């Protein structure tokens, strides 16, 4: 992939720090934004910073149209049945919290999650367990990071009301076999929520083909603005959910003692929304589609293979997840024996402006259960290059000689 033309779209990639280019390998945390997204956000504030669906002036009509257009584009992007299945949230975390609070859980109901969930797909269920009395079932994964499907099937029983899984792990980049998992859950009478924060930016998702019930993701990991996300839900299910946050724009009318909620998505979008974010997210979807997921996947595999294979040859380095780089998406997460992960990450930044993440990557439960202090995670995206991988490897080799 000749990604130079795409790289030119990202202002940050044109910058330098201390005379060196920035090597941005922290895309699992958040991606960089292309100029078109920045301009879309800027355009809202410059030209049409008004409210949606409330006022009747031209500016309000313009921004209402732009936001609804974004909703339509996102529905089309996900192959949703209708645009009303798209609820704008702040991020993936809020989407999952919305389901956790709105779903009609009863005491003794079970929610299944995997043993390597991001805190965003763990803590909401822990709180629901305290609030309602649900139980949390932990599906194990193997040393290769793959979900133990046999164990998963064994865990399915009538009490399992929801299976909530990270579709692609931010820990090791492994993507679960969604269709198979969802089919098994539905056969059991359970619904499925997918945390697709690490999937949507990297692969084409067809929610109808998957038959997933809920799917949450964030704008900031797919080149969209931060502070905007989406919860997709099948319309029939959304209609049944109680709203999580309530207030302005969620009701058709109210009296001093009662109110009548609007249908989805409005009943879930309380208060004035992040309109710039919504419009920017629409622009990010356009940009993603222009790049194309085939090209994205191909470039990620190329880079992951180049980086992963060389790292794997180094004696003190241990990479999490499957040996096959093709199964790790854009993520190369590793530890360096006898070296502090934060020190390695900071030194990569100090020496060559290489941005990676270190720590437990919000998957504390997985790290703590295995007694691992933390790791260094390089997460790649289509705009990264083999030349950057070389810079990384060269710098990293220098660092491990020192630490």
């Amino acid at each position, binding site marked *: 992939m000749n990604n130079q033309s795409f790289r030119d779209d990202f202002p940050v990639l044109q910058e330098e720090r201390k005379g060196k280019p920035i090597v941005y390998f922290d895309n699992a945390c958040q991606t960089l934004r292309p100029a078109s997204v920045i301009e879309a956000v800027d355009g809202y504030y410059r030209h049409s910073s008004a409210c949606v669906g409330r006022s009747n002036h031209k500016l309000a009509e313009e921004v209402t149209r732009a936001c609804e257009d974004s909703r339509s584009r996102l529905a089309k992007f996900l192959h949703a049945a209708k645009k009303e299945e798209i609820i704008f949230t702040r991020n993936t975390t809020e989407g999952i919290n919305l389901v956790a609070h709105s779903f009609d859980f009863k005491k003794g109901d079970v929610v299944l999650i995997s043993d390597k969930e991001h805190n965003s797909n763990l803590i909401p269920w822990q709180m629901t367990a305290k609030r309602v009395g649900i139980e949390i079932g932990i599906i194990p994964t193997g040393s290769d990071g793959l979900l133990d499907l046999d164990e998963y099937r064994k865990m399915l029983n009538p009490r399992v009301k929801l299976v909530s899984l990270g579709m692609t792990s931010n820990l090791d980049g492994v993507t679960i076999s969604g269709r198979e998992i969802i089919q098994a859950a539905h056969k059991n009478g359970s619904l499925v929520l997918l945390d697709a924060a690490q999937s949507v930016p990297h692969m084409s998702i067809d929610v109808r083909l998957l038959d997933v019930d809920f799917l949450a993701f964030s704008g900031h990991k797919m080149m969209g603005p931060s502070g905007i996300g989406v919860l997709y839900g099948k319309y029939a299910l959304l209609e049944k959910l109680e709203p999580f946050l309530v207030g302005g724009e969620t009701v058709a009318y109210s009296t001093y003692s009662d109110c009548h909620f609007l249908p989805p998505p409005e009943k879930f979008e309380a208060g004035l929304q992040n309109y710039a974010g919504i419009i920017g997210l629409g622009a990010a979807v356009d940009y993603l589609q222009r790049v194309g997921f085939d090209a994205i996947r191909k470039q990620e595999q190329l880079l992951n293979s180049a980086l992963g294979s060389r790292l794997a040859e180094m004696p003190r380095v241990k990479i999490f997840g499957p040996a096959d780089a093709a199964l790790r998406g854009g993520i190369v997460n590793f530890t360096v024996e006898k070296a*502090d992960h934060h*020190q390695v990450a*900071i*030194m*990569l930044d*100090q*020496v060559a402006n290489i941005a990676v993440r270190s720590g437990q990557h919000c998957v504390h439960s997985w790290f703590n259960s295995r007694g691992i202090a933390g790791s260094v995670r390089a997460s790649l995206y289509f705009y990264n290059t083999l030349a950057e991988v070389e810079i990384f490897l060269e710098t990293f080799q220098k660092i491990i000689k*020192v*630490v």
Partner: protein
Amino acid sequence: MFCIASFLVLSILGIFSASNRQLAREALDCVLRRVTFRPCNTGFDQKMKAKLVGGVLTRSESAASFINKNFEILSWIFIVFFAVSSFFALRGIYYYYVYGSCNGLNQTGFCAFDPKGQNNAVSAAPLQCKENPPTAADLTLKDVDLSLFPQINNDSKDTMVFLGCYACDYSRKAYPVIMKLVDNFPVNFVFAHYPIKENSDYNSLAGECVTQQDPQALWKLNDILFSTEKTNLSDPTFIQKTVVDLGVDLPTFLKCVEDPATEAKVKNQITDITKTGIFGTPTVFINGKPLVGPKPYRVYAISLAGLFYWLK
């Protein structure tokens, strides 16, 4: 140990920069954890270590490796150096406050608070034939007969002797400070004119003759001579006009100035002054302790009334 070292350094840098202030807070958190026997789990030490080693790695791999391996020892060494330099820095501040010089009483050498050494500057006295040049350590009032000199007796236990020269810049700078002390503290005050500039012998004679007629008029004459244009000091007409203005009888004054006995007395005074070992003016003795150069008011006041003179 690194947390302590970082906290000390960053606290100082934090005075000038907000980003360092934030790091200083993190370092403090780390220090507080260490002193309460808890692990420093803020990652601060690792973060700073990584930044330092990373910075060095861009220049030298072997130096980075050395620092990384010996980080704790280097932190200790730094702390020791920091403690030692802090001690000297604090001592310098204390000395400057108490003696007007970072290097101690009457000690010359660079002082950041007095870079030009103004507080130790003197107008040099004529060289005397001595094997070793005189120093402040040699200054003493031991063999000096203070009764030879004009004085203000306040029946105080404290005595301040001011050896100055009307024509010397540094004496002229010190004089108003000294007189302010005389006003503020009940001290016995002795004034000795040491004419080390050319053409100022006449002033000594004038002072002596004014004292003989009216001891109080001398202090008024001093006020004028220490503040007038220096060119006036070598002009006998100016001196004579001044003493007349002070109510002194001019013929008597002129006769006194011409009198060999007056000259002998003044010479006698100067001989006694040289017995102090004086090498420049102003030199002030407070209860026998010499202070060379025009010190700030507080330095003299501390010598008279102690560190907390301002409370008295």
